[in-house]
């Protein structure tokens, strides 16, 4: 991994995965609801958009401005989708986690044990 390839934060990964789950036409309210329903995480819409803007600056998501609808008080939607760079970053994060979880077992009393394995 080159020095320029930064790791994704936990929330960034969750947001990118939510975008991939929704597919096309993912927008703020929809992503927020998905996070609330699927991972019981009630995020502020501002926090979600700041994360999406940061991901867009990094080139991991693209956004387009959509149509305005009456149920939104005539305000437009902003749709997001994950770019190839975003998908690569997600895949890299998953690989890192897969490697780091190898040999780690959690016992029921929540105490962490590590089995040393030969690499």
């Amino acid at each position, binding site marked *: 991994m080159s020095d*320029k390839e930064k790791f994704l934060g936990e929330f960034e990964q969750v947001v990118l995965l939510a975008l991939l789950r929704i597919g096309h036409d993912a*927008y*703020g*309210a929809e992503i*927020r*609801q998905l996070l609330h329903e699927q991972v019981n995480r009630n995020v*502020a*819409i*501002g*926090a979600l*958009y*700041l994360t999406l*803007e940061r991901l867009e*600056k990094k080139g991991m998501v693209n956004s387009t*401005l959509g149509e*305005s*609808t009456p*149920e*939104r*008080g005539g*305000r*437009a*939607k*902003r749709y997001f989708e994950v770019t190839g760079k975003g998908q690569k970053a997600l895949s890299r994060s998953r690989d890192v986690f897969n490697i780091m979880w190898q040999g780690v077992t959690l016992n029921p009393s929540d105490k962490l044990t590590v089995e040393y394995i030969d690499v």
Partner: protein
Amino acid sequence: MFNSKNKPVSPPTAATKLLLWCVPKSAVEYILGDLEEEFYVRAKHNIIAAKYWFWQQSMYSSGIYLKHNAASLDFLKKLTVLFSLCLFFVILQLIIWLNFSDSLENFSPHFWDTLVSGYIHMAVFESAFWPHSIGSWQEINGWSFLLDGSAMVLTLLSGCLFTFLNQRRKFLAHQIFLFGCGAMVIPYIFGIGYLNAFSLPALMVGPILSTMLCNVLYLLLPVAYLVLRKIKLQNIDLNF
């Protein structure tokens, strides 16, 4: 959509205004749209809970954006330019006034005590200060009054400390800004404390005031330059 009294239901106006003030114009359109959309869905079940939820969202989101804007490089850039230019002008006015003005006519009665206690910055709040100090520009016949040996030593020490710390741990723009503020403010406060502790005669107060002000004057522009250069480098780093 209408409530039980047949009045139209709408999101709380004050919460909407709060968002309009705190969230950048580029983002407020779709943030408010998303919140309104979810508000109307929630209001079908419970209007009070929906309003509470809207308030909660707008307060959290406003706080997040305010914090983000305060910490953003763009804000720091504007703050650095504005702060350094304004402060440079004010400090220069104070030094010129100290050197070339010889009366405290029209100043408040206790201003002399304030001045010899080291609270030189209080002069800018005196209504007589600005006409006096701007008038003092005509008296200037050379710029050697801006040279202060003690202030130069202090500035040099701050520069050395900065270089040493920056080599050990590369400072970010915010950290350079804070370091610069510290290097300007700490000797200034120390000067005030010294003058208050020892109650020196008026003749000895002048050079100390001059050192306090010149140190700020010497540091201002180099610190601003370093902060702006670092912001530029950080921005380039972000775009990669």
